[in-house]
């Protein structure tokens, strides 16, 4: 229970920031419309700045689409951006505009990144749905019980709240690694 399945790097589709060889890997199962994930976005940015190349950050989809009506479409658009190598700019744009995630806004973020409108529309119709559900179910099997669901070096981390405590946990993982 509460162990990351599948581990990072076991499939080539994980979205990574930072070197895959970093001594600490932080995985987030996140929902673009979840307010707590919005808070986590800022905290993780701060932690990434502090850790530099010692940290590899991975984002996996965990949209609670019944609770958050725009979460699934936001994830679809991010996956479409990933196809064009623009995942992280889209990930950031979504978290920085959590109050504007309707389809029109999602299309405009895509177009601002130079993505093809027809492909974006196909994404909104679910062209990446299977991939997103795979992420979601891997989270469920790993014991994710809400968002953001965080894993530090494959182990679930529950005490999430501020950059200092997360940083302390990551540094401890680095020392143990």
């Amino acid at each position, binding site marked *: 229970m509460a162990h990351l399945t599948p581990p990072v790097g076991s499939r080539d589709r994980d979205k990574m920031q930072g070197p895959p060889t970093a001594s600490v890997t932080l995985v987030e199962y996140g929902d673009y419309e979840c307010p707590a994930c919005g808070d986590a976005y800022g905290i993780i940015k701060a932690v990434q700045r502090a850790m530099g190349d010692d940290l590899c950050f991975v984002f996996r989809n965990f949209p609670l689409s*019944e*609770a958050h009506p725009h979460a699934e479409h936001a994830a679809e658009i991010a996956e479409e951006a990933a196809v064009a190598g623009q995942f992280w700019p889209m990930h950031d744009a979504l978290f920085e505009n959590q109050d504007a995630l309707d389809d029109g806004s999602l299309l405009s973020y895509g177009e601002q990144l130079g993505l093809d409108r027809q492909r974006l529309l196909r994404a909104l119709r679910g062209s990446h749905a299977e991939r997103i559900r795979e992420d979601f179910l891997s989270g469920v099997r790993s014991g994710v019980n809400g968002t953001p669901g965080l894993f530090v070096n494959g182990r679930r981390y529950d005490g999430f709240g501020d950059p200092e405590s997360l940083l302390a946990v990551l540094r401890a993982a680095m020392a143990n690694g």
Partner: protein
Amino acid sequence: MPNPAATSGDAMPKIGERAPEFTLHSTPDQSVSLSELRGHAVILAFYPADWSPVCGDQMSLYNEVLPEFRKYGAELMGISVDGVWCHAAFARERKLHFPLLADFEPKGAVARRYGVYRLHDGNSERALFVIDASGVVRWRYLSPVGINPGADGILTALENLNQANAPASDRKDA
């Protein structure tokens, strides 16, 4: 964290025992009996109360995982001491696609039968039971009341159930 209101779990039906029968309202004019669900695996998710934040997350999570539960032919039932109108409002607001049963009158009677009633708080523990198609408890889990137990334990239990029943598992679920 020591919690004086917590039950020990000793009174919970044991694995291999018959799950206690009950009949509870799922809507103002419909009720569900456990025995009516024979032939299907049943997931009973006791939770303390509608609207409290962790419960909401737990039920919302199960709502999203529902297609996976159904792949195993399993029926999910949430149970709390809230009344039918409260359940109806909660289910509507969270867009829940599974029944919430009202263990309301006599209050907590089913939770008591399953050994998960919290006497001091007057509500139930956060407890999970997986019951097989013949009505026998196959898995149970008592979670700390403030922690959403997630769905991984349920899925593993359903998987084990399916393997155990493999030769006879040609039934189709509705």
